[in-house]
């Protein structure tokens, strides 16, 4: 009797749920774009996705944030709803090898005007950024602050805590090796043992951060007056009046990429947009002016505001100060192993 009542209630509650369940669209002319989310994604989509959608009569849908597990699950289930996805290059390499991402068809997507280092078998660049030495300007002056990674690791001369991103691809190993005197052109393959030995020397002063938000909180509050940061976060904090600045010397260049998940039904639209985006420097520059992340193609630099140009890694002012570009083919092969060692090292 009770059970009967229970079952009735259950079916009732299933019905209520069903009633609210709407149908989703079919293979309409639409493209779903996936990035890291937040305000930055809004700006990016309105700068260089929606104008194309309007031009072509394609409805633009957005999802966020990029999640590699979701990516893989969609491809394996052969139900792909993500059209173009912003990813880290090491994932792009893995996804390409595993057949999760579509190969870039050079006939449909013109990548000839791009720096070929940024183009993968399955991926094209979306933006470029730098791991810089971010510093607090009330603790250190514009003249007297660490200007090299060796100085960044010198806690005697520049006391205070140092912030690093807690993931292996956060460029801390590259910075440690540069600080230890490894020539920039001999960085890869990374000597991880040596990097850990160097990191050991400042271990008690290291603070690991998880998100971009923490990054700017840590440096602008002075809690870690020095931080290995994404240049755009520091730029945004400085724009808000926070006492922070980027030191561009020896910066490490990195980039994000766009891939098309294998099995996406409207891959044709995804390719059309990618081609439009990569060959539309004006649209790229709009986002750069907002974020201080460098555009995918150098041609866009002409449209970047002068004050922002000083703050992006590919400008003529900053490009010569570069130490290296992060080698993501190395990271695609070694991310697992180094992550495990990093976890061990952190736990010690």
């Amino acid at each position, binding site marked *: *009797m*009770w*059970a009967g009542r*229970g*079952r009735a209630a*259950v079916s009732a509650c299933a019905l209520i749920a069903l009633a609210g369940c709407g149908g989703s669209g079919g293979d309409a002319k639409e493209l779903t774009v996936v990035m890291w989310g937040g305000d930055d994604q809004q700006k990016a989509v309105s700068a260089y996705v929606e104008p194309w959608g309007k031009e072509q009569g394609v409805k633009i849908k957005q999802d966020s944030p990029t*999640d*590699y*597990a979701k990516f*893989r699950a969609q491809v394996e289930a052969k139900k792909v709803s993500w059209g173009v996805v912003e990813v880290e290059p090491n*994932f792009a390499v*893995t996804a390409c090898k595993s057949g999760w991402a579509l190969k870039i068809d050079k006939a449909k997507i013109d990548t000839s005007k791009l720096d070929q280092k940024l183009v993968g078998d399955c991926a094209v660049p979306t933006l470029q950024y730098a791991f810089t030495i971010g510093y607090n300007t009330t603790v250190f002056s514009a003249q007297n602050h660490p200007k090299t990674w060796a100085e960044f690791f010198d806690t005697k001369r520049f006391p205070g805590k140092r912030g690093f991103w*807690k*993931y292996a691809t956060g460029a801390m190993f590259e910075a440690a090796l540069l600080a230890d005197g490894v020539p920039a052109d001999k960085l890869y393959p990374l000597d991880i043992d040596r990097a850990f030995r160097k990191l050991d020397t400042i271990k008690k002063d290291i*603070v*690991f951060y*998880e*998100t971009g*938000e*923490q990054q700017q*909180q840590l440096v602008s*509050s*002075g*809690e870690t007056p020095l931080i290995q940061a994404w240049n755009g976060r520091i730029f945004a904090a400085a724009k808000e009046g926070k006492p922070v600045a980027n030191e561009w010397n020896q910066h490490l260049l990195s980039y994000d990429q766009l891939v098309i998940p294998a099995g996406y039904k409207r891959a044709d639209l995804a390719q059309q947009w990618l081609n439009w985006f990569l060959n539309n420097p004006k649209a790229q520059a709009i986002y750069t002016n907002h974020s201080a992340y460098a555009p995918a193609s150098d041609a866009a630099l002409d449209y970047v505001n002068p004050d922002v140009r000083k703050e992006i890694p590919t400008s003529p002012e900053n490009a010569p100060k570069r130490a290296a570009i992060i080698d993501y083919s190395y990271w695609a092969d070694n*991310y*697992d192993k180094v*992550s*495990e060692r990093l*976890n*061990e090292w*952190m*736990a010690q």
Partner: protein
Amino acid sequence: MTAEAATAEPAAPAVRRGLPRLDRWGLLVLPLVGFLLAVLVWPLTAVLLRSFTDPEPGVENYLAFFHSPVYLDVLVNTFVTAGLVTLVTLLLGFPYSYLMTLASPFWRGVLMLAVLVPFWTSLLVRTFAWVLILRDTGVVNELLPGPPVPLLRNLPGVLIGMVQVMLPFAVLPMYAAMRGIDRRLLQAAEGLGARPAFAFWRIYAPLAVPGVAASALLVFVSSLGFYVTPALLGGPKNIMIGELIVQQLSGVLRWGFASALAVILLVVTGGLLMLMSRLVDLRRLLGGAR
């Protein structure tokens, strides 16, 4: 059914061996069992089996757990943290719930409000608020004289954040249980000459045990899966298994290993709960007794 039969039932010894038959009350369990089998168990089987098949068939993923000492460390840390959180939560929550049963309606309302308020502040926002409160240049350290007290990126930070999240989950069941306890029993005991502390311990406390055990179980088990709070308030040494699994699943994409970690967590938790149920009467709470 007579009154005698009903009260005698729990004490009736389980004479029959083998599977007990399903009675009318037992039927009530079925909808939930069916629901969970369909929504949870069926999908989970596929994923957990991956621990034996992904990337290659075998027990490689389980051996990988012992490949580096860090995984065992993380597992131990997970249980230690969850245990500490449970302990602190009960130590704070028990007197709080008890006082709620004594307070005037107005004060009871105020205390209840304080328990419910955190629910409406998303976990994420709360965690970021704790960062601003606890960091070296944060609210607490600005008020305290002397060099900053490290409250963040360490165990105290994790505990402060997690206990605040779990306290409401402990207080509500305890309060609900204690409300039902007839306080006249205490008066009667004291009337018969028992000292208040003795009366409380021997009369009141045993009656409160189901509520306390429910709270402890909820808090402990929920704490095992925490990920956001320890990741943001803890340091590199405070990493919990939830974060590790996320890292393996979404970061490194070692799904087989992530599943193996989950299976190991499940097995160890199950074993631990069984052990605890021998000490505390946890099983009755879940209807496992008799």
